[in-house]
């Protein structure tokens, strides 16, 4: 059992608190099936894979991947990068990663290399073809509407740290998924063929209301021979998996 990165410094009034979905991502990435898949796809001595987490929130997932690169990829020479629409989440992520990497160093373990967490919409700031592993824990709860994105001028500014209305909107952005809970996820899926490298693979979390089977089938119809499978599940209730992780890749 690998330790979960500490997020004790994170302000949950405006940043999504790690929950069952975050932990399912962590658990899935260290399943022997996934580590075997990733080690085979990114063998040592090949160029360092770039891992992007979209919507890092507290940074718990990106910190876990960075600190446990050796376990997950069989190599510590990976680069990690994050994006979030919430500038406070970017700040928190950098700190969560820093703490996790420091903890690893204390027990003599090497970590991957964290680049930065940038404020942005999904993967739009990333260069096409640059991402080898993309991880996304989306806002997946079905809601009537999507909350407004933070405005350009609203992004960051220690001058405006206390703003209740903005904070509740930032929090809503981290879970409210619009129709079927799929509005944001569908936008991200649409970016995958461009942003992923040839060896790229994406891990995307879905909930039951997102209709994972339909999503799988849609991806399998993309041009270019894409594969998609459910590789992790949690929250069994009356035979239904509440949450699942999709792996999406080109063989």
């Amino acid at each position, binding site marked *: 059992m690998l330790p979960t990165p500490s997020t004790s410094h994170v302000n949950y009034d405006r940043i999504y608190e790690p929950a069952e979905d975050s932990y399912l991502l962590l658990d899935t990435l260290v399943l022997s099936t996934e580590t075997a898949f990733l080690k085979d796809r990114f063998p040592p001595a090949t*160029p360092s894979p*770039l891992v992007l987490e979209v919507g890092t929130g507290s940074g718990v997932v990106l910190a876990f991947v960075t600190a446990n690169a050796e376990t997950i990829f069989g190599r*510590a020479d990976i680069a990690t990068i994050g994006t979030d*629409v919430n*500038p406070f989440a970017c700040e928190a992520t950098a700190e969560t990663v820093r703490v996790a990497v420091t903890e690893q160093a204390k027990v003599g373990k090497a970590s991957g290399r964290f680049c*930065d967490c940038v404020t942005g919409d999904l993967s739009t*700031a*990333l260069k*096409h073809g640059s991402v080898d592993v993309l991880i996304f824990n989306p806002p997946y709860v079905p809601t009537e509407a999507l909350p407004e994105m933070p405005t*350009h001028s609203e992004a960051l500014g220690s001058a405006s740290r206390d703003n209740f209305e903005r904070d509740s909107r930032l929090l809503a952005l981290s879970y409210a998924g619009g129709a079927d809970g799929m509005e944001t996820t569908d936008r991200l899926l649409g970016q995958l063929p461009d942003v992923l490298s040839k060896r790229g693979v994406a891990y995307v979390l879905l909930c039951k209301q997102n209709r994972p089977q339909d999503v799988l089938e849609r991806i399998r119809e993309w041009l270019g021979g894409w594969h998609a499978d459910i590789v992790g599940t949690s929250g069994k209730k009356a035979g239904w998996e509440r949450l699942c992780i999709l792996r999406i890749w080109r063989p």
Partner: protein
Amino acid sequence: MKLLTINFLTCARKTCKSTPASFPLHPKEAELEQVETEMNPLFLRNILPRLDWEAMRMLTTELGLPNLPAETPAPEELVVATTTDLDAGNGDDRASGPSQMARDLHVLLMETSIASGKLVCGNCGHEYAVKEGIANFLLPSHMV
């Protein structure tokens, strides 16, 4: 933000994505800071093929940093033999360490950061702000 990060970013506008001028972004009024971090020679070696060397050269020039060599350094240029025990008569006692080139690259890519300033798209001219080391790629709604 680290200079390495800029190797992976472009203008966020859809209309710019496919134009070569949207990469690399050009620093403007950049305040640099040095953040020390431990060097990982293996990482350096395997991240090199991920770099757009021309873009990195352009970036260092625009930031007024020492020029990078014309070509991506070869892996063997990153190491130097540090100790050689000639008496041993075999290679077993040879140890190697990071070369000056490796140290310089580490400082440039991993330790040199833009604390504040702007990153400008060479295609549309949009300026992305960097504040407290965090770049903001959110676009005003009329530009999305």
